């Protein structure tokens, strides 16, 4: 519990540093003209998306471990990671559309990355739905783990398929060949924000798992009371 508090505090401090870096330390982007300030949303956007991918990868790993070990703990972890994937994915989609509108002039385009991210978000939602329609906890764990693994393997294939399908997607700005690249201060800001978001993600993940464990304990206690003939409200 004490460790959790230290984690919370460090997340808070990291977020404050990230905010400072984003709004004060990082230089204003020039090529986007008078709307250059909008570019600052980039740090939030990339970090949310990174966290979504991280969460998906965690779902994949935890699902495999659950199937191997059949322990409820891994099921809880997979489920919590998937929920956070939806949360950060939603943030990523919203910040993305907000950024696209002033810069590209449109809210959305069917570019490879946008499309596959949208699909990943839908898959994570489907995963949530699947968990809600299976009654037995053991079966819920197994079925969602199977779906989680299939989905995680599918995501990179979808991305590649999308890339080959329509190849005119914008080249990556960072590390996309000569002439691209970030101002060192921007790169540093991005690293700080990524770190802060990762800390936040792990913190929320731990809390969410703890919540689920408590719910399990309460359920067991209620069942014990019921078998003793007591009324449970």
């Amino acid at each position, binding site marked *: 519990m004490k460790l959790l508090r230290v984690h919370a505090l460090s997340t808070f401090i990291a977020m404050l540093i990230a905010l400072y870096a984003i709004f004060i330390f990082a230089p204003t982007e020039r090529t986007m003209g008078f709307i250059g300030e909008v570019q600052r949303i980039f740090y939030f956007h990339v970090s949310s998306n990174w966290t979504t991918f991280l969460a998906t990868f965690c779902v994949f790993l935890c699902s495999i471990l659950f199937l191997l070990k059949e322990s409820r703990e891994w099921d809880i972890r997979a489920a919590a990671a998937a929920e956070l994937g939806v949360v950060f994915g939603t943030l990523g989609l919203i910040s993305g559309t907000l950024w696209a509108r002033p810069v590209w002039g449109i809210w959305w385009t069917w570019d490879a990355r946008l499309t596959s991210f949208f699909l990943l978000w839908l898959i994570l939602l489907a995963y949530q*739905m699947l968990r809600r329609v299976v009654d037995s906890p053991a079966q819920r764990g197994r079925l969602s*783990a199977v*779906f989680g693994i299939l989905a995680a393997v599918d995501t990179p294939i979808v991305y590649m398929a999308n890339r080959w399908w329509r190849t005119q997607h914008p080249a990556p700005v960072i590390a996309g060949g000569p002439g691209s690249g970030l101002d060192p201060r921007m790169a540093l800001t991005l690293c700080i924000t990524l770190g802060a978001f990762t800390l936040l993600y792990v913190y929320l993940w731990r809390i969410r798992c703890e919540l689920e464990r408590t719910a399990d304990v309460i359920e067991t206690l209620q069942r014990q009371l019921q078998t003793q003939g007591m009324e449970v409200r």
Partner: protein
Amino acid sequence: MNFLNQVGAILWKDILTEYRTKDALTSMLIFGLLVILMFHFAFEPDSRETEKFGPGLLWMTFIFAGILGMNRAFATERENDSLQGLMLAPVDWSAIYLGKMLANLVFMLLAESVILFCFALFFNFSLMPRWGWMVTITVLGTLGFASVGTILAAVSMNTRMSDVMLPILLLPIALPVVIGAVESTAAILTDPPGESLTFWIKFLVVFNVIFITLPLLLFDFVLEE
């Protein structure tokens, strides 16, 4: 009884049941024809538009009709608890998966051949010059769809809303098949065939290899109770 015989026995059982009831095939066929009719009213395509949208429309029809068939695949096994009997039989559970998957593949291909024929007839859409490619693409695309569909049908069978869950789980996972199949179908419509043809066919093969192996490994966990 070796593994292939086990798969064959399950496949034969499904074909026999289907031959006697004709449930899945009739529903897929009627549904497919209705979708074609809907498309006609929704888009009223002329011949150039048919060439442009044809491959997409065709595969949408295949996939929606396929989902209808997949939903039946395990629903019939639930009646009279016959799935229990199948699981108690001295067969490897992955044989159940393969048998069911092949049965789905056969039913889908049968329905698709009729749908394809009607599609070509109604929209004056000539596939005859390249029917060999068309057969290859249809088999590969349907195989990929059936392999993912069968395991996800087994997953959704265990949920409270099985009919609704299957498309929600299956459509996102099967998206690469749709892209590959539509693109390769579009490539054979041009003369000479588009150069992307071989690429997309290889893509479909790779997808099939991955998504037949993975369900074979995972299917045991789906049936376990």
